[in-house]
């Protein structure tokens, strides 16, 4: 027991920090580029804006292709890229590369869905004012889709938290790594349990905060 506490005292702070670093950075990259892709998919599938199925199919194919990789394989395949981008793939920043690449297409589909779910009548009304797409996006599509975009972000963060444990095992650190290194390899069951409890609390917290934000921006 005292050993468990000692291990946690020595490693937990850093492990938590590494996980946060990986999840938040890759999550933000996923949201930014995923939203961008979501807009492209929406824009080119709507006859009110520009119906270009080939654009849609091209991006759709790339997104599906990346999403077909089981994360474990994607992570391994991207080790060389992580090396080029961050110098050392076996660090939290190195792990962030594969997490971000996984997050982008994942969030792109969620964002596309959020925009497609905006009432077509509202978009039609916006178009009938003669507004340009930029304005329609900022003042109509984005505010109407925002609650769904926030919920999608929550979903993405929670998935990334799970994946971050996997990158942890190949040396990127984080609490997943802590659980494996001490809890599994060194039979410190206490560490394993502590990490599970921490993960449960983190997931509940992310979900709770996300729901609060989503309902704050919902007025219907």
């Amino acid at each position, binding site marked *: 027991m005292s050993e468990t506490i000692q291990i946690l005292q020595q490693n937990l702070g850093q492990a938590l920090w590494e996980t946060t670093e990986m999840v938040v950075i890759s999550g933000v990259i996923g949201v930014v580029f995923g939203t961008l892709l979501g807009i492209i998919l929406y824009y080119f599938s709507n006859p009110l804006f520009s119906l270009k199925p080939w654009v849609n199919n091209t991006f759709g194919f790339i997104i599906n292709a990346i999403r077909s990789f089981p994360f474990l394989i994607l992570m391994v395949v991207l080790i060389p890229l992580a090396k080029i981008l961050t110098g050392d793939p076996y660090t939290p920043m190195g792990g962030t590369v594969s997490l971000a690449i996984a997050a982008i297409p994942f969030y792109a589909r969620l964002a596309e869905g959020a925009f497609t779910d905006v009432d077509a009548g509202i978009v039609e*009304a916006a178009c009938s004012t003669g507004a340009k797409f930029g*304005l329609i996006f900022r003042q109509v599509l984005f505010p109407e889709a925002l609650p769904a975009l926030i919920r999608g972000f929550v979903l993405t963060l929670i998935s990334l938290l799970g994946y971050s444990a996997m990158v942890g095992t190949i040396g990127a650190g984080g609490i997943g790594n802590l659980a494996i290194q001490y809890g599994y390899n060194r039979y410190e069951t206490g560490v394993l349990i502590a990490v599970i409890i921490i993960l449960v609390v983190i997931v509940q917290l992310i979900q709770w905060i996300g729901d609060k934000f989503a309902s704050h921006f*919902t007025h219907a």
Partner: protein
Amino acid sequence: MSQIEIKNVSVTFKAKQKDIHAVSGVSLSIQKGEVFGIVGLSGAGKSTLVRTINGLQQPTTGEVTVDGVNITKASKPQLAAARQKMGFIFQNFNLVNNRTIAQNIGFALTAANYQKDQQAQRIEELLGMVGLADRKDNYPEQLSGGQKQRVGIARALANNPDILLCDEATSALDTETAEEIVTILKDINTRLHITIVFITHQLEVAKSLFNRVAVMEDGRIVEQTTVYDLFADPKSQMGQRLVGTFLDTKLPDEVLFKLKQLSGQLLSLRYQGEDSLDPIITKIAKATGVEVNILQGRIEYIQNKAIGILAVFLTGDAPNITQAITAFKQAVDQVSEVAL
């Protein structure tokens, strides 16, 4: 030249099995300042047709010209400019739920590059016009259906349009609220001289709002006339059907049941003008020896002109009844024998 010229417009939607012809070869001319109505059952193609006027729907063939601008061939900026001069009001209001009333109207102003620092004033002015000045910071969910539609009207009027397109603008509202909206639209038409194109399946609205009207069936215009003539003397089958349902004499079931016990003929009479039919009825009754019972009567006013509707029941000998029916047909505009 008329303000809106629809020339031989067809809209075909590609479906898996076969193409759907939503609009087939429609031509219409709508004059500046009139209230032009398009009536028909749902699925007749009315909504698709009205969307070709501001380019929300591209015609498959044909052309639409509005104030000299060919909407069908217009470039993006031309189309945007044309749309700013055409307000659109929807059945389901279509306000942005997560933005306030003021922001909803501000959107339309920004779309037309209205100066930012003058928007607040213009929004107040517009909301004042529709009687919602105190609601500008509310969200749509806090308003009733009628209030939402008033916001829809305010948004449509934001950029001083020349034309207002209304797609079933009163159909989601109760009768009283629908009347309020009609009153507002009428006022807009007379005071601001804005042309109104109004799609509806509600003849009640047609009666009080329209000047001219087109009847649409299966994507085609089957009749085009003044609103009074549509009610007084519909020519097309669809026109007769729509007007028939609206002007129908609806007798209570108990009365119909009693009439079934008697041998006689129920007639539905429709005539123009507000004169009483009493002298004619007395004359026919005397001449043929049939008894004429008046079961129900009312007068509808359409564009301030009257149409009388009467249900009478004739009893007597069969040949005499036939004679009386012939006499009624000569004396009254429309006589229909109602089977019991």
